[in-house]
């Protein structure tokens, strides 16, 4: 349902060359899906942006003093407070704009969009309180969750965003317990329960869909939330060349459906809408799981039940979303 802004493939390279927002040469791992998300946020800008970044992978790989990959104003304060810091920036900007404080200073602009950027740990878990508060207070900002499904920066520990069965260093595959026995927290449901004007999911493989949604998030008056799917080859034990393939498979298997929620109304987008209309195009989740080392144990004959269970969880979630979607 993303209408209005259509990314122009001819103008984007020029725009990104003139004003990249983030530079190459940062220290993200090869095949990092989250680094692609950062570029896509930049491609969707309608005006300058200011980023409040939670502690995590994207904070660490883009900055190490005296270097920075950012060519956009950027601040990192702590792990659990990206939304609160963004709230402060929003409030400061509003007051300074209203007062015309720096209007006479040609070196200063207070006209920008505010972005909070956090991983799954900083959103599902430690940052949930600050996020909920900022949504309730209706700050004018876009919160981007880059979800690589575990605490990757500290060395692959499970989070509330880690899917069922996944191996992590705190959900090891043991004789008794194999991987994470629980499933992913429905973070978008939680966010949407705040009845914010805009929420959406994006996968970097579907970049036009992603750019439209990021732009919509920027244009939203009030809080917007984007749940971005971020492949982590290091933590998922996947081949770096498979990042985009996995970003597609996650959507094609309906493990990570693409949709937007506009004023609490759900709409499927892109390939997820196609699958809703042509259910036979839905791929079995095993195709997605088998490419990842973190699910390797599930491929053993004695653990086949885990794949089945995973498929059930995916189907359950997909059915819920289908029921909600207004455009199916």
């Amino acid at each position: 349902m993303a209408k209005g802004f259509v990314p122009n493939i001819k103008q984007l390279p020029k725009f990104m060359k003139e004003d990249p927002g983030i530079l190459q040469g940062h220290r993200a791992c090869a095949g990092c899906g989250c680094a692609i998300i950062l570029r896509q946020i930049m491609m969707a800008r309608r005006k300058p942006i200011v980023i409040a970044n939670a502690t995590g992978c994207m904070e660490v790989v883009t900055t190490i003093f005296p270097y920075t990959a950012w060519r956009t104003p950027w601040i990192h304060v702590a792990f659990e407070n990206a939304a609160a810091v963004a709230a402060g920036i929003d409030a400061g900007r509003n007051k300074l704009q209203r007062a015309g404080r720096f209007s006479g200073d040609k070196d200063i602009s207070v006209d920008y969009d505010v972005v909070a950027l956090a991983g799954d740990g900083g959103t599902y878990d430690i940052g949930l309180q600050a996020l909920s508060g900022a949504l309730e207070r209706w700050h004018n900002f876009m919160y981007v969750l880059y979800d690589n499904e575990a605490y990757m920066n500290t060395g692959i520990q499970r989070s509330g965003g880690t899917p069922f069965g996944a191996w992590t260093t705190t959900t090891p595959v043991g004789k008794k317990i194999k991987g994470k026995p629980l499933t992913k927290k429905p973070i978008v449901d939680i966010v949407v329960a705040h009845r914010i004007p805009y929420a959406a999911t994006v996968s970097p493989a579907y970049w036009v869909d992603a750019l439209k949604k990021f732009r919509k998030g920027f244009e939203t008056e009030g809080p917007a939330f984007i749940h971005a799917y971020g492949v982590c080859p290091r933590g998922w034990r996947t081949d770096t060349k498979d990042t985009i393939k996995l970003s597609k498979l996650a959507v094609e298997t309906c493990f990570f459906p693409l949709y937007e929620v506009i004023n609490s109304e759900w709409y499927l987008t892109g390939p997820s809408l196609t699958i809703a209309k042509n259910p036979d195009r839905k791929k079995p989740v095993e195709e997605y799981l088998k490419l990842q080392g973190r699910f390797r144990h599930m491929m053993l004959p004695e653990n086949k039940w885990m794949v089945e269970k995973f498929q059930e969880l995916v189907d359950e979630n997909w059915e819920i979303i289908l029921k909600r979607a207004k455009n199916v």
Partner: protein
Amino acid sequence: MQKVVKQRMMALNGDEAVAWAVKQSDVDVVSAYPITPQTIIVERISDFVHEGEVDLEFIKVESEHSALSACVGAAAAGARAFTATAANGLQLMFEILYITASLRMPVVMAVVNRAPSGPINIHCDHNDSMGARDAGWIQIYCEDAQEAYDSTIQAFKISEDPEVLLPTMVTLDGFLISHTLQNVSLLPEEVVHEFLGTRKVQRIKVPEIFGDKEVPLMLNPKYPLTFGPLDLFDYYFEHKRQQIEAMERAYKVIERVHKEYAEISGRSYGNGFIEPYKTDDADVVVVGLGSTMGTAKAVVDELRGEGKKVGSIRIRVFRPFPRELLRKVLSEFDAVGVLDRGISFGHFGQVYSDLCAALYGAKDAPMMIDFVYGLGGRDMPQKLLKKIFEEVLEAKVKGPEPVFRIRGVR
């Protein structure tokens, strides 16, 4: 020299006095969470905002952690930011206290001193702000509501000085100051505006990116800067050294701001760092912080009436600690009683241990005795304080042992 301006007298408690200071100080963003005994501050500021009497953004956050985080965001965006808290709220902010100072954000915070849990208690002691003394904030301890008002205004000017750029905590004793009505003289709003101006933003050079251009130190799309990068063993220490040096430079700025403010308001608190009372010919003095030192003045008068040569010294600025000054001043006396409304479990009260460090090796260092008192809001009546003075007088003859004494406890 400026003339002292005509002022309006209002009956205010300490919390209200702080709220008035915030109202008059061109604050852009307030971000705070209610906690007894700080609540009146956020209530009054809310009144001012909702009545349209002040134009500021009040973020009514969901926790103290977010309260200070939002202040950091606002200050980085170029706004003047204020928050207020107490005890457990301050402890929830603990992580962000260090980051605020490290990012050199000139945030001002009122801390209404309250005993930290547990057991849960809402009354005054200093263990909350004492726990934060190493966080890199300037700390000013007030004696009454008037001083809380004056110090809050001064705090913005101190924090935002380009030589300093550090956050400031203004503390006032819970209930004893926060909820106690007093005649408070308020400066005309335009005088405060003129004294402070709106928040200025310092300019810095970043030659690698912007060459010789001096760029505003804020989140600004015209000259994008990175705040809060990862900073490891190769640079972190240099940045800490800069914080250490900024604290050292703060002495001069605190003194200057206190003097400038005295010129327009007619009010001063000693030299801004310490406030001695009848110490000129005193043999023994009692040193402490906060509202108890008001009581101490009455006790000094009483003992002077009995012919005893006693005095008192109130420490107003605890960070940066006026160590050179105290080393010099306290060396004049034979015995010093130190009043600590806090305790470092397993050691002494915080004021005592800091004073011992400051006086170590001084040629004429006095004997010093630590009196821990008033935890959880336990009263310090004149009678008890008089007894403490008498103990110090006695120590002059009999010696200081034991140097650690707990008073007013069962």
